């Protein structure tokens, strides 16, 4: 079918953060099957921090991601599996393995100013015949002309879609519009948007993105993603239907996989809590959430103070080790008994 918009479901990748990377094979099979039947064309399955993300720094995967990719692919009749790759964490061999396990799309992600580290991986994606996407993370941290410059690099390496990725859930709708419009104007490939709901703006930002020309938008079921999660997939399906866009996703079946499957194993509701709100407010990478809460507890400091400080330090995605140090520093300077 011809779709006006592609809803890419990232529950089984971004949700990995909220699950502390403990998805079981059975959970992955059920979600993948449900998404496939609901008409989702691309669903992402990877460790939250991308291929090779299983580590002490980010948390070990309970089940090897290659096994999960394979399991998800087996359950799908029409849907295809996407994988995330962050150069510096994952390497090209990981992508080759993922393709053997059944991946058909790769999204190569870098910090918004560091696109040039992704050249080899984007080229490899194309050579392997994958649908290849460039993902500019923490898009709130760079001015528009920088975002355009970096997006053009991705396009020049062969990316077929370039994403504005609001990893911190910090962008406001008009800022999404500015970024997506600028890419639409200056690039000839398709544009995508990936949001986080830390300021309760994920759906509004997604609307701003599609109104500015984005054709790929990410979501997670019941918002199961890092921080307060992503734009809610089943809500997007309903909203786009009301707006008259064809997404190929059927409402009742997508709601059923959200509520009958995902909701059953979610460790906590994906609300906008004190700490996720501050992440959006101070522009901190959403996957820092659980690590910050843990450090705050250990050092008996306010998690909001840690997050504001991380924002001030301009921490980027992947710097989870900094959280502990910042918390320790706060405890020391305030003489908080540990």
């Amino acid at each position, binding site marked *: 079918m011809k779709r006006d918009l592609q809803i890419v479901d990232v529950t089984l990748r971004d949700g990995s953060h909220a699950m502390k990377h403990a998805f079981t094979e059975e959970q992955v099979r059920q979600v993948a099957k449900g998404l496939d039947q609901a008409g989702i064309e691309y669903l992402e399955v990877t460790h939250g921090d991308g291929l090779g993300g299983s580590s002490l*720094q980010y948390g070990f995967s309970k089940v090897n991601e290659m096994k999960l990719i394979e399991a998800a692919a087996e359950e799908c009749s029409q849907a295809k599996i996407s994988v995330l790759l962050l150069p510096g964490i994952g390497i090209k061999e990981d992508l080759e393995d993922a393709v053997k396990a059944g991946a058909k799309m790769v999204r190569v992600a870098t910090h918004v100013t560091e696109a040039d580290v992704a050249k080899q991986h984007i080229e490899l994606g194309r050579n392997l015949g994958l649908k290849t996407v460039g993902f500019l993370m923490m898009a709130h941290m760079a001015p528009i002309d920088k975002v355009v410059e970096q997006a053009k690099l991705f396009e020049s390496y062969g990316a077929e879609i370039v994403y504005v990725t609001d990893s911190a859930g910090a962008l406001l709708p008009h800022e999404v519009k500015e970024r997506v419009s600028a890419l639409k104007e200056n690039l000839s490939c398709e544009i995508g948007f990936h949001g986080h709901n830390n300021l309760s703006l994920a759906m509004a930002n997604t609307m701003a993105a599609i109104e500015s020309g984005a054709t790929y938008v990410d979501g997670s079921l019941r918002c199961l993603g890092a921080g307060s999660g992503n734009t809610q997939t089943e809500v997007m399906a309903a909203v786009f239907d009301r707006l008259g866009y064809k997404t190929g996703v059927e409402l009742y079946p997508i709601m059923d996989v959200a509520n009958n499957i995902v909701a059953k194993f979610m460790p906590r509701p994906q609300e906008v809590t004190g700490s996720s709100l501050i992440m959006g407010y101070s522009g901190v990478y959403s996957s820092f959430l659980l690590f910050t809460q843990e450090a705050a507890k250990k050092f008996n400091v306010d998690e909001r103070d840690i997050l504001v400080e991380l924002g001030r330090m301009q921490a980027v995605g*992947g710097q989870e*080790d900094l959280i502990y*140090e910042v918390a320790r520093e706060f405890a020391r300077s305030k003489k908080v008994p540990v």
Partner: protein
Amino acid sequence: MGKLKVGIIGSGNIGTDLMYKIERSDFLQMSTMVGIDADSEGLKRAKDRGYHVIDNGIEGLLEKAALVDIVFDATTAKAHANHSKLLTALGKKVIDLTPAAIGPFVVPSANLDEHLDAPNVNMVTCGGQATIPIVHAINQACTVEYAEIVATVASKSAGPGTRANIDEFTRTTSRAIEKIGGAQKGKAIIILNPAEPPIIMRDTIHVLVKEERKEEEITSSIEKMINSVQDYVPGYRMRGKPVFDGKKVSVFIEVKGAGDFFPPYSGNLDIMTAAAAKVANEIAKKQSTFVQK
């Protein structure tokens, strides 16, 4: 017995910074800077300081091979394979700062003495130089089953070579964590941070050790190691104390450079050139002692 005469191939940032470090080495004599661009900053600086300058690359150096005893290669992995073959054939010692890894890995504070006689030694990666000493130190106190390092460097300190081939950093560092650090399994992660003002290189080392309750031995081994690295990188320091959580040990390091040619935040580049200079100096020292005997 005089000092060993040093040639540097590659008059870019690394080569230029290295020149200043050679000047401070007791057993080395800076002799020749080799580049391929007569107008490069490195060649100009070398000339100003009175050194021989060659601007037609390895061919030029081969014509004047008597100028050098030991050669640092700060070009590329691809070029290095050729350079190494030509130079070792002439009996020159080669110190490889590229990811080519033809010769054995050397991290001075961990395995300096093992490879002083090798014709070619490789300096691993910046992240490897900054973190492998710690893995090695922990492994001396308690078997390391798994070691993982996270190197965070300022975007401005990551040159085009590193960026174009970031997987080489990851792969080479992981391998050296096992081979030199002694971990049964190694993993490396690199993060580029564009913050302004640029951040000083930070490294986090997480390991899983075989036994719990070895905290005192591990901490004292790490502290000794920090002193030994500070011998050639004075700005190398541990942030806080090691953190123990069952079998997991985390160590936080900051590497501030000497500020020779690079700004001090580029500890990642500084530790590479400082370690390379240290290795060459030890090779020269050994040869000099041998001759005296």
